[in-house]
């Protein structure tokens, strides 16, 4: 597909990087030559210096033949104008980043009026992600598949767990067998474990299964599963705003600490049910006086990674169970995990994932493309959801006869009323939702999962 991205900021760059990797023709437009320089040197994309609102620049970028325009500049208004101009010039699909909560309420009107196919709001998406993490506090990462019928979580193995040092094939006898440990991250290696794999302290386990089963498994191995009631948020930006609104619906009490007086007042006006405190989130005395140690979760959302890290350290020290940190610049979550942070939220990554999912859906509608895609373990692995249809070449063949591509496993199968954690004798039937885990390999079509069909071919 021919894709034009306007705005070479964090999201624009990251999108260009992933889309180019997936063999799309990407053109980036930005006014700042310095911003373009890196993209031009590192990525296989075309860079055009200019204003993305200008018709001339858009035409130069080939908007007439383009399939998709992504407007990701820092200004909502400019993004809207870019998308509108692009649409008038003949681009097939448009995506715009619109992040201001004021516009967020009018999205449906905006979408129809501007002809937008997708609106992305990184802050709102990040807030939703945090809310999901809070519902399952023992996991570092939670993703839903098949409308929530299958859950995919990441937990860290600690020394007090009874599963340490036991080969995985012996686990099934002792614990629930209806879950699958799909991917393990050990140090910098991403491993698909076989039956003889022994779990070690510090491993990050990615578990797939029915939400109940996953929950029970976590309970059995001693992961705390109590509900979260009180949350402290440091940094009153847009994510905090969206998060507070979201958590209010779930009856979770939120306390926001914001350093800027005016912004505090503003927040207090907009969020009448939330306690807003004007103060420095890295000040231990202030945090203690606000009963930090009594909190179920602590979320650091300021604009600076360093401050987020400092305040999260304070929170961990005070014994808060669940600490979530937002990062903007640091792409390596392992850095944070080593410091004891439970979960990391990166709005850039969330936005990128979201758009990538959309693009994959567009790109080859005639084959058997993935329904949803999540990048997990530092983007080193992907979890994909496919629906088996007529074009699927390996229906009704026992899995043990299929030779899967290297680094690929089938994690779960969702049929009408049941969720199957597959074994060798299970088969894929027409209409099944199949969850596939892949490391180091980009799969665009379901049929790429299987290399050969055993004795049949």
């Amino acid at each position, binding site marked *: 597909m021919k894709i034009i991205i306007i705005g070479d900021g964090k999201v624009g760059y990251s999108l260009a990087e992933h889309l*180019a990797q997936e*063999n799309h023709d*990407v*053109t980036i437009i930005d006014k700042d030559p310095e911003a373009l320089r890196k993209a031009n*040197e590192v990525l*296989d*994309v075309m860079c055009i210096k200019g204003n993305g609102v200008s018709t001339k620049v858009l035409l130069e970028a080939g908007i007439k033949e383009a399939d998709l325009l992504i407007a990701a500049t820092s200004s909502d208004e400019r993004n809207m104008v870019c998308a509108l101009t692009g649409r008038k010039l003949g681009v097939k699909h448009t995506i715009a980043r619109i992040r201001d909560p004021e516009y967020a309420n009018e999205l449906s009107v905006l979408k129809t009026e501007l002809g937008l196919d997708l609106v992305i709001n990184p802050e709102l998406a990040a807030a939703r992600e945090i809310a999901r993490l809070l519902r399952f506090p023992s996991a570092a990462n939670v993703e839903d598949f098949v409308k929530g019928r299958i859950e995919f979580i990441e937990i860290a193995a600690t020394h007090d767990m009874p599963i340490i040092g036991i080969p995985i094939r012996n686990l099934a006898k002792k614990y629930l067998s209806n879950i699958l440990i799909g991917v393990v991250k050990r140090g910098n290696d991403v491993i698909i474990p076989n039956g003889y794999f022994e779990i070690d302290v510090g491993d990050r386990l990615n578990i797939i299964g029915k939400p109940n089963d996953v929950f029970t498994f976590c309970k059995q191995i001693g992961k705390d599963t109590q509900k979260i009631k009180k949350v402290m948020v440091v940094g009153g930006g847009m994510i905090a705003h969206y998060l507070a609104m979201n958590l209010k619906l779930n009856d979770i009490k939120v306390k926001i600490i914001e350093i800027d007086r005016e912004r505090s007042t503003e927040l207090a006006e907009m969020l009448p049910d939330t306690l807003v405190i004007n103060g420095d989130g890295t000040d231990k005395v202030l945090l203690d006086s606000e009963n930090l140690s009594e909190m179920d979760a602590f979320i650091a959302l300021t604009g600076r990674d360093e401050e987020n890290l400092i305040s999260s350290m304070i929170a961990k020290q005070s014994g808060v169970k669940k600490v979530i940190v937002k990062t903007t610049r640091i792409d390596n979550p392992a850095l944070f995990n080593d410091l004891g942070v439970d979960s990391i939220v990166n709005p850039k990554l969330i936005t990128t994932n979201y758009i990538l999912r959309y693009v994959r859906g567009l790109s080859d509608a005639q084959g058997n493309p993935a329904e949803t895609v999540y990048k997990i373990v530092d983007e080193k692995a992907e979890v994909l959801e496919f629906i088996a249809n007529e074009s699927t070449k390996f229906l009704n063949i026992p899995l043990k006869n299929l030779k899967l591509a290297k680094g690929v496993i089938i994690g779960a199968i969702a049929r009408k009323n049941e969720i199957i954690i597959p074994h060798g004798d299970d088969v894929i039937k027409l209409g099944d939702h199949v969850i596939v885990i892949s490391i180091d390999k980009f799969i665009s079509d379901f049929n790429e999962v299987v290399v050969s069909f055993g004795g049949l071919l």
Partner: protein
Amino acid sequence: MNIAMILRNLGKLLLVEAGCMLLPLLVAVIYNQNDIMAFLITIMILVVIGFALSKIPARNKNIYARDGFAIVSLGWILVSLFGALPFCISGAIPSYIDAVFETVSGFTTTGSSILRDVESLPKGLLFWRSFTNWIGGMGVLVMMLAVLPTARADTLQIMKAESPGPDPGKLVPRIGQSAKILYRMYIGLSLIQVILLLIAGMPLYDTLIHTFSTAGTGGFSNMNTSVGAYNNVYYEIIIGVFMFLFGVNFTLYYQVLNGDVKSIAKDEEFRFYFFTVAGAIVLITCNLWGPIFGTIWESLRYSFFQVSSVITTTGFSSTNFDVWPAFSKTILVALMFIGASAGSTGGGIKCLRFLLLFKTIKREVRRIIHPRSIYTVKYGGKTVNGDVLFGVMNYFFVSIILFAVSLFLVSLDDFDMVSNFTAVAATLNNIGPGLGIVGPMGNFADYSDLSKIVFSFTMLFGRLEIYPMLILFAPTFWKRVNI
């Protein structure tokens, strides 16, 4: 430096070269002369070494700018060293250094030769010699990018290092695609020339030889006296026009193919190139009319062909221009340095650089008159970045230094100044023939081995636009960890 990845890429490059050699092998088989074995042996050597290198395991698959430059410069040297083998093995050129000179001259599209009697060579070897012109014109590595499906973002570094011009842009977002489009246009334009020459009555074999050399702006002919041997005005017009066409920035052709015909007339560099050619033709025609040729048409015929041949750095000759008046010869030497357009297959310093340099002169003059004035250099309506201007000026200076160093080394052979001067100019700018003993009727055979090695390097320097080769001579480049 990622040595494993560099070697892997070099291995692939050698495999591509082996593939390229199949064509001359076919020609050799058709004419059934004594060069068949030479090609077979070389292809086997290339395949074995290339295959071994390309299977080297690499832990880290990233190529950074430095590695890209290393692949380009080492790649060109390796391709030339192996490309020389058929000449040597068949015994057509007994000295390996001579064979390397001839091959470097081919790949860099120079067209200088050490052969006294070109026509005595077996047909297969002659074909290979001109085919190197064709491959080298668009670039050996660009061909690799076009042929192999593995083009990744970081290979951009390779294309940047190999493409002529100060700031090579991509035609389309994906680099592999860009390389393919470039080659498609290149092949298309070559095909048109083949058809036209055949219609004009040139034999097929000669047509292919001359088309390859024209397209790559190389200038290898299968005749001792080059195109002049045919004394056919139609051949000269076709070849002359196509030399000019191959000296145009290929991006313009892409725009024209996409329906934007006006862009070619609006392009500042094209206008500069066109008027330089037109001006030179007019001046030389006037100068030749009378003392050399009797009629204005004859003067025009030879001046047009020679100007087109020299500015595009092809180096074909239709007559012995060494006997022309000094004024005409001086213009030709000046054209050698100007060279063709950026993004074409031609060599030289490039019209674009000269255009930008003239614009900086204008800026400096204005600054003296209005010391506080702000003046930005513009090209094609867009402001030219200060870094680019600096790069152009720097390139100019480095060319002069390189020119001087080569001239000193070559002077050791004690030939006359004009020969030495034009020999270095002709190799550094990838033209081919110079004046004096290296004139259109002469060759480089009399120079010593040292000079031939120096010339080989100046040709490579000229084709790769100096820096990719220059870094090979920087000690820090070879250190594993650079501090």
